[in-house]
Each structure stands twice: as C-alpha cells, then as structure tokens.
C-alpha cells in the first residue's frame, strides 16, 4: 500500500460489518499504531498542532531572539513568569512539547514517504495498464471517425507517436478488429512530492545536527580598536555543540572609522540614518591585510566567518585623574542608544587609583536641546554634544571576581554623590571640558577626540562604536540546497498532471474506423478534458469547429 489508507485517492474503507476483530498481539498493536501515525489524518492533525504550538512564541519574548525581553518580562510579571518558564514558554522552539510535535510529524512523514518511494519506484518500471473495454464511461472522452482508408493499426501507430512526443509512456494493445494504445504520464508529480518531503527531512536534519558545528560571537568595537578572532576576545560567544575552539582562525579586525549619513533634505525624515558604513581592516593569520566596508545588508565574508554590522552608537572618551593629576582611568565607553536621536546611556567604572571605587552613570546627548533639565537630544549627529554624569562612590562589587555586566552599575553598596536627591548638580560636560569630582576625589574630563578640536564645530569630537556579529555556519549551503529542492519538488508535485490516456480504433463493417479517446485523472487534474480533446484534435482534426464561441478552457 503506497498511500495512507485515508488518502482521498486510496480505496474507500470497507463498511464496518460488526464482526469481532481478532485480538491484536503486541506486533499487531505496533502495526496499528504505526498505521495511525502515518495516516493522513494524523499528519494533518500534527500540522495544525504545529501551527498552534508556534503561536505562543510570538506572544511571549523568547530567550533565543530577545533575551532582554525575557528579563524584562520577569521584572514586569514576577508571578506569571516563573510559571510560564516551567512550561518552557520562553524557549518555545526548543521546548519538549514543540519538539515532540515536529518529531512526530517528521516520523509520520518518513513513515509515509518510504513506502510511497518504493511504490513509485515500482510504478516507474511498470507498463501502462491494459485499455479498458468501455472507454466511453470515463470522464474525459472524445469520439472521432476516419474514412480515409487507413487501417486501425496505422491510425494507432500515429496516435502512439503523437503521445510519445508529448512525453507519455505508451503500450500497444491490439486485438482482432481493433487496435489501441494505453499511455501514461505525470510520474514527475509523485517524484516532486517525494523530493519535497525528503528535502524537508534534509532541512530538519541539517539544522538539527549540522547547526552544532558552527558558532556565533558578538563584539563591540570602538573606532580604532582591534579585535582578534579568539574565544577570549569576544564579548559573548555561543558555540554549537560540536564546536572546537581550534577551528577559530586568529585573524584581526580593526574598526578604522564608522560613518553615518543622515537625511537632511526630506523634512519628513530629517535626521533619519540612511547609511551606516563600518570601514574595517581585516588581517588574516598570515598577515595579509585587506580594507573593507561592512554595511547592514552587506556582511564581510572573511576567513571562513561572516561578520555582520548589527548596531552602533557613541563611545565618549572619559578620563579620570586623581587629586595629584595622574590619570587613573581613560577609555572610550560604548553608550547604548535609547532612542532615535541617540540619547545614550553608559556606565563608567573606576576600580583603582582613587580613595574610593567610583562608578558613574552617564547620559550622552549628541545634540542637547533643552535649556534646563530634563535634557533631551533633538538630532542624532554631533551638533551640541553634552555628557551628564551621576557619580557614585563605594564598592563596585567586582573585587570578588564575580563577572558583572559592563552596561549596568550595582549601586546597592554605593553612595550617590551627584544628581538625584543628593542636592549636588550632576556633572555636565561638553567635549574638551574637565571638572572636579565631588569630595575632592580628583577630576573627570570628557575628551574631544577630533583631529582639530573646536567648540564651534563638534564634528568628530566623540568616537563611535559598532557592534559586530561573527558567524560561522558550515551547513548554510546545505539548507539552501534542500530548500531549493523542496521548492522545485513542491511546484512539480502541485502542477504536473498525472493522467492515463487511451486511444482505441475499431474498424467498422463499412471500412471506416471509429476512434475513441479517453483520459483518466490520477489526482488533481483540472486540464484533463482539454488535454483529451487536444489529443483527439491533433490526431483527427474535425472539419468544422464544434466548440461554441466564447468557450473558455480552464
């Protein structure tokens, strides 16, 4: 049996006759369950289950695509979130229940595809079936007659050649007084169907196992910084299960410059970024350097990895000196953009060199537009850059060796010195300015990094950073290949018509030959009648068109 028993093209089930079935043994039960699993109804049920099961992943943030959203969800819904987490609602697409559905679906699919492949293989090698006795009972049927004197055999020879040209497989069945040809075409339909389903299995297997050989890593680079493709140099790194560290080619990547173009002509989009360019120098492990530009839709494919530009922002350069004037801290700190005008938030941590550990929460406004607090930014480029710092002193909590996020300041063990309720104004700096820290701790400066610093034109006064994703996925090409196979298989299986056609010639008493043309659809075949009519017409053209005007053939 090639198709599931409840497939529309399979024979209808025998009506229940009320006779007691023999008792099923263990193997019988297994066979029964297998039948159920590979039935069309189960496949359909599993497909609909899969569609429904995929929905929650779009309603609740997912750890895979939106880890910050998950953290936020836990903060916003402290009671609900742990319950959802128990049923893997934050990892829907790797959850046990989602996996169960698609694994069952694929088992059902494989259980259906294997017998069908076998059956199809045999069908490909079998001959077209014998011509039925009464062709006129078939749904697509045409009649012609020929009195040219040609014999029935000669006419069927013609028809056979004609059908062969159209890609039919043909078989002659001649008897006394009549000749006929049985023809069959459209095996590609089932081939396409099987290719489509097999390609889906291919995609699943490639993604499931092949994905384990790749990795993805993230790294933020401030202009001028260099990153080396080693495990230590990534900000975060997600290796696949079978990933081996030695596979990393230790190439270097330097962010030379990050350029942004803003819209200035169209007032409806004034200040909208219309181009991001990360100009980088990539140096292979052998020492060969190449310059390249990485853009949003234009990754750098280098040394077996793909480097994508994902984000960007400002990295103000901040220098802290002790009361003696010695530099205890100087760095360009990536500030995370908070809105379209690039109001940015960043954290400065000064662990050593001062009387106390110092932490600062900084707000950066590339174009500060308010006369008095609250400040805001009105344009994302550097027209009037202002940095606001709230200073905390005390224990940064990093001495114990517990890793802390560089983008968050734990103020539990710290005392706020400026801003907020302290009564001391927050530190406010423009590029190039320096000011005293409270309590005589020292000084802090917001350094102007432009080639020619000026207070008239702040262009280039603050460095920019870019965040890069580095990926390596050896299976991508395989997935693409399977996807293309699936699409071609799908198109073939939906549009190639599988049909059988017979042409039969019977010599009458008066010497004229009566011709019958009949077709039988196997599966969806809306063009069957037209095809049979066309075959008849090509074989024996009718002298007068019989089709009414305006007839439209679907």
């Amino acid at each position: 049996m090639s198709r599931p028993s409840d497939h529309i093209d399979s024979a209808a089930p025998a009506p229940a006759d009320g006779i007691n079935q023999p008792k099923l043994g263990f193997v019988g039960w297994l066979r029964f369950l297998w039948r159920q699993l590979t039935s069309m109804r189960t496949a359909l049920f599993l497909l609909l289950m899969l569609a429904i099961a995929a929905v929650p992943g779009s309603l609740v943030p997912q750890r895979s695509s939106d880890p910050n959203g998950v953290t936020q969800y836990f903060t916003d819904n402290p009671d609900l979130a742990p319950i959802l987490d128990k049923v893997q609602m934050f990892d829907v697409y790797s959850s046990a229940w989602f996996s169960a559905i698609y694994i069952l679906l694929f088992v059902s699919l494989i259980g259906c595809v294997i017998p069908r492949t076998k059956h199809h293989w045999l069908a490909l090698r079998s001959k077209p079936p014998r011509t039925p006795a009464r062709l006129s009972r078939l749904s697509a049927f045409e009649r012609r007659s020929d009195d040219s004197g040609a014999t029935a055999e000669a006419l069927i020879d013609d028809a056979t050649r004609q059908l062969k040209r159209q890609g039919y497989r043909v078989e002659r069945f001649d008897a006394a007084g009549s000749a006929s040809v049985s023809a069959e075409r459209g095996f590609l339909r089932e081939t396409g169907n099987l290719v489509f389903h097999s390609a889906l299995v291919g995609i699943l297997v490639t993604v499931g196992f092949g994905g384990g050989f790749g990795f993805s890593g993230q790294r933020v680079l401030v202009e001028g910084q260099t990153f080396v493709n080693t495990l230590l140099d990534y900000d975060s790194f997600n290796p696949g299960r079978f990933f081996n560290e030695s596979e990393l080619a230790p190439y270097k990547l330097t962010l030379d410059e990050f350029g942004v173009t803003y819209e200035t002509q169209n007032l409806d989009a004034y200040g909208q970024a219309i181009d991001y360019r990360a100009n980088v120098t990539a140096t292979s492990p052998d020492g060969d350097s190449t310059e390249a530009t990485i853009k949003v839709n234009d990754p750098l494919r280098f040394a077996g990895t793909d480097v994508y530009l994902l984000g960007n922002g400002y990295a103000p350069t901040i220098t802290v000196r002790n009361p003696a004037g010695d530099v205890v801290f100087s760095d360009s700190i990536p500030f995370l953009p908070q809105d379209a005008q690039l109001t940015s938030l960043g954290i400065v941590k000064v662990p050593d060199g001062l009387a106390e550990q110092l932490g600062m929460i900084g707000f950066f406004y590339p174009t500060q537009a308010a006369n008095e607090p609250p400040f805001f930014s009105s344009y994302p480029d550097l027209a009037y850059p202002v940095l606001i710092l709230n200073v905390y002193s005390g224990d940064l909590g990093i001495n114990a060796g517990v890793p802390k996020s560089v983008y968050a300041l734990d103020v539990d063990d710290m005392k706020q010195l400026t801003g907020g309720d302290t009564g001391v104004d927050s530190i406010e700096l423009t590029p190039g300015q320096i000011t005293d820290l409270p309590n005589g701790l020292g000084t802090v400066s917001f350094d102007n990094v432009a080639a020619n610093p000026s207070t008239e034109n702040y262009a280039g006064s603050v460095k920019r950073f870019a965040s890069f994703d580095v990926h390596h996925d050896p299976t991508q090409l395989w997935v693409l290949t399977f996807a293309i196979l699936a699409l071609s298989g799908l198109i073939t299986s939906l549009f190639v018509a599988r049909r059988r056609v017979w042409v039969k010639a019977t010599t009458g008493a008066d010497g004229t030959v009566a011709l019958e043309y009949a077709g039988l659809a196997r599966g969806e075949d809306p063009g069957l009648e037209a095809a049979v009519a066309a075959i008849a017409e090509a074989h024996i053209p009718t002298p007068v068109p019989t089709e009414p005007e305006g007839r439209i053939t679907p």
Partner: protein
Amino acid sequence: MTLVEISNLCLWSAVAVYALAFIAFTFDLARRSAEVTAALDAAERAQLETAEERVGVLANASSTTVSPIITNDGVARGKTRRPADDDGVEQPAARRSPSLRIGVALTVIAFLLHLVADVTRGIAAGRVPWANMYEFAMTGTLLIVAVFLVVITRVDLRFLGTFVIGLVTVLLGLATANFYVEVVPLPPALQSAWLVVHVFVASLGTAFFAIGFALSVVQLMQGRRERKLGVVRSAQPAGRFRFLLTLPNAERLENLAYRVNIIGFIFWTFTLMAGAIWAERAWGRYWGWDTKEVWTFIIWVIFAGYIHARATRGWRGSRAATLAIVGFSAVMFNFVVVNVFFKGLHAYSGL
C-alpha cells in the same frame, strides 16, 4: 501638484470607484436572488412537465447558470438535460447582467487609478512602493485586483466581485486612513534587492490567498445550502442567499479555490525562503524565530494543512475550506496585528 499629491488623489478616487463597483456587484447578486425567486414561484405554479420550458426561458434571460438550479435542487429533478458543462461558469458574455458588467468596468477603472497611485508613489519615493505598511497595503490590494482581473478572463468568477472588491475596498480604505505615512528614505536595513523580491512575492501570495479566501467563503455558503437541501428534500430552496443557486456548486468552487490557493502557497514558500536568505545577509542568521518569521511559518503550516486536508478523506469540502479561511485570516493578522503590536525585527511599518 506633486507626485505624492497625485498618488494620494488617485488612491482615494480608486477607493471611491471600488466602492461603487462593490455596489454594482451586490446589485447583481440581488438580481440573481430575485430571478431565482421568480423562477421558483413559476415552477411551483406550473406542472413539472412545463418546468423545463420555463427554466429554458430563464436560462436565456439570466446571466450565468440557471441550469444547475434544476439539476442541483430538484425543482425539476431529472427533467432537464444536464448541460455539457455543468459548472455554469462558461456562459457567453452577452448574457451577463448590466450591473455585473458595470461592476467589472468600474473595477477596471478603479484598478487603473490604483495603479497610477502606486506607480507615482514609487516614482516619488525613488524606490519600489512597498517599503512600509501603507505602501504594502496599496500594492497588496492592487495585486489582489490584478489577480482577480486576470483570473476572470480565464474562468468566469465575476460573481466573486462582491467578495473580492468588498474586501479590497475595506482593506485599502482602512490602510489609507490609518497607515498613511509620508515618503521617507529607506533605512539601511531595507536597502537590499531582496526588498523588491521578498516583499513583492509576499504580496502576490497574499493576493492569491485573498481570491482563494473569497472562493472558500462562497463554497462554505454553497455547501451549507446543498447539505440543507439534501436533508429536507423539499422543492423550496433555503430562504436566504438565493443567488447561490446561480453560482457553481460547492465542489466546483472548492476545486477553483484549491487551484488559486496552491499558487498562493508556492509564492508563500518562496517568500519564506527569500526572507531567510535576506535575513542571513541583514541579521546574520537565516532563521531566528522573529515574530514575523513565526507567523509566516504558521501561515505556511496552515496552508500545508489545507493541502493535506484536500487529500484526506473526510476533510475535503467544508473542513478544508475552513482551513483556507483560517489561513487567510492569519495572513491578515500577520500583516496588521503582528506589524503594529508585536515586537520584532520586522519593524518597518513606518507608524
């Protein structure tokens, strides 16, 4: 007038003309209902022997298929000869009612206005006119009408006008009123050739699903009527929606819906794959369960289910049609609700 003003003016005019076309199509359905009522009254009064004759008269006077009335509904069961093609969708154009012809003509006029609006918007923006929700709605509905107009030259589905043009009028009117945004340049993420391919094929798939949706709705109505008839076995047809008697039977509608929907499904499959290729270039991974990806996947699975339902005994017919309707509803949900309210990487609604 600027190009954008021309575009906006043409678009609102198109909405107005679509609304008029919708009214004309609705008149046609009402007329069909009235004719059915008249024919049935006549048939009831007369003896069964003469019914055939009257029906013949009716068939000549009316637009499409009156013959299936007889064969389907037992008004004169067994008395009429089955026409060669009992689909009833292959009637000479001369017999179409004036309101139906006006409906089609208005649809063509509205389509041309719509096309001008779409093209001028694209020229004004200097790019393809499908880079935000407003433009996508404009191009998507344009394609629905284009597919509809192409299909009716091959198969007479003019009776679907009420459903298709009604849907287009509502979608386009709502989108223009709620999603309108000024022309702005493309953000870097959208500056890709895949914008042209991925989004266009998605709209094309949506257009085919929309026609399939309309067919499936009519199929469900027709199927209900046919089932009722089978149970009651009365000469009197179901009271409401008498125009259904002049439309193809449920099986024929289902076959048509299937053919339209599988084309939509192929385009949708391509959209999914093209989107994955683009996602790899833009976001560094070809699949990441972004909300829009999730819903595109859900829609794909629903229509895969629909195709399987067509091949499953006990599911062909109304259940399969319901799946097609659920599938198109998911397409609409994906467009409106997911774009506007869900958080994700496909944040290009422009709102």
